[in-house]
């Protein structure tokens, strides 16, 4: 078996190792701030109809100008964005109804909301490596300041579905920007197992546990289906892979792969041809695992999931592929028919 696929098989347990400790500590730290459950979102007016768009931060957002097209179409349904896609949404003039945040990292994630405390570029290049918008590759500080202003301006219109694992700095930033927070627990383990952490967490705060699927984009899809009960969900920016021509050193886990595998790090990348576009995209072990997990979840989900990224690596049983324009046209027809 290829090295990348072999590593991917170990990532369910590895992710628990990575996030459980800090996630539970954050849950404890966030406890006093929890006022609303994510279930309350289901009772809150969001977009019209049964269709929703879930926005991830993948490269297709820019390659396909998905957000500009979404805005131009005047989509009336619900828009749920991963936190990493918030900046791209606002810069494109799309204000999501809900933003989902889960990552417990103490410093990185606040940048997706604009970090008012940032006065110099940080040594950690996580953000620079992943921010797909070319405007961020120039003056990082100016781009951050612009995002701070955008989030401050639109924050009161945006609801945050915050996992209890979210870093306190993110929670503080959202509150400061006037965003309403709706809380949920990440599902850490089998809630039926003895000494389950998920169960202990639920006993502590009474919040529902969502099976996150490894990454915030998948968690946003889970929320849109299981909490908001949307029956038809279009995906944009959820590529679960890297676009053709992306240098390996620009990929999310590159430093870790080099450190762990040394000269063999190139063997960890998995290349796949998209069946419709013929483009060769690639993934690393983490994104390969995310893809496998998404397909497993989508197969048993009681909704129609339409991949409108027009590329990427998310295809297979349980996923329909369509152009964004056709998804939006169908949704517009529904809204017109049903008012």
């Amino acid at each position, binding site marked *: 078996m290829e090295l990348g696929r072999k590593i991917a098989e170990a990532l369910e347990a590895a992710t628990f190792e990575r996030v459980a400790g800090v996630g539970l500590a954050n849950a404890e730290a966030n406890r006093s701030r929890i006022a609303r459950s994510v279930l309350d979102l289901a009772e809150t007016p969001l977009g019209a109809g049964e269709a929703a768009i879930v926005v991830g931060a993948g490269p297709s957002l820019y390659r396909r100008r998905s957000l500009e097209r979404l805005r131009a179409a005047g989509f009336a349904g619900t828009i749920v964005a991963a936190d990493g896609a918030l900046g791209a949404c606002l810069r494109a003039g799309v204000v999501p109804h809900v933003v989902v945040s889960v990552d417990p990292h103490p410093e990185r994630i606040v940048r997706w909301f604009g970090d008012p405390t940032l006065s110099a570029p940080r040594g950690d290049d996580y953000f620079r490596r992943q921010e797909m918008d070319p405007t961020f590759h120039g003056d990082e500080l100016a781009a951050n300041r612009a995002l701070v202003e955008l989030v401050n301006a639109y924050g009161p219109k945006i609801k945050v579905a915050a996992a209890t694992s979210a870093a306190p700095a993110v929670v503080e930033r959202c509150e400061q920007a006037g965003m309403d927070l709706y809380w949920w627990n990440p599902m850490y383990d089998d809630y039926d197992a003895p000494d389950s952490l998920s169960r202990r967490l639920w006993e502590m705060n009474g919040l529902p*546990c969502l099976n996150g699927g490894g990454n915030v984009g998948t968690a946003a899809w889970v929320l849109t289906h299981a909490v908001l009960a949307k029956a038809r969900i279009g995906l944009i920016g959820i590529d679960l892979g890297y676009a053709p021509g992306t240098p390996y050193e620009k990929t999310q886990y590159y430093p870790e792969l080099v450190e762990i595998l040394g000269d063999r790090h190139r063997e960890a990348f998995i290349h796949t041809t998209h069946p419709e576009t013929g483009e060769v995209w690639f993934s690393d072990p983490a994104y390969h695992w995310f893809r496998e997990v998404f397909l497993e979840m989508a197969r048993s989900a009681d909704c129609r999931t339409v991949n409108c990224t027009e590329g990427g690596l998310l295809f297979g049983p349980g996923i329909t592929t369509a152009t964004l324009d056709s998804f939006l046209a169908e949704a517009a027809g529904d809204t017109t028919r049903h008012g």
Partner: protein
Amino acid sequence: MPEFLKGNYKLDAKIEDKADATDSTDEFEKKALSRLGGSICFVSKKSLMWQGEAQPKASRATPGNGDKDKAKADGAGPKDR
């Protein structure tokens, strides 16, 4: 070990029990792999949402669609919308 393979001599070197070494290798691998993991867990073969116990079942659940509804939510699901 079969009798005929046993040596008829004594070794000067001390043979370490490999159990500790294996444990530390496992631990190293576990820690290394954790750096490649995601930002949120995935729990295979469980529902998308669990709301604890002693709550009503999901109101959207329909008879005959059990597997799919089970995949969606254990415990109380979203209210009627």
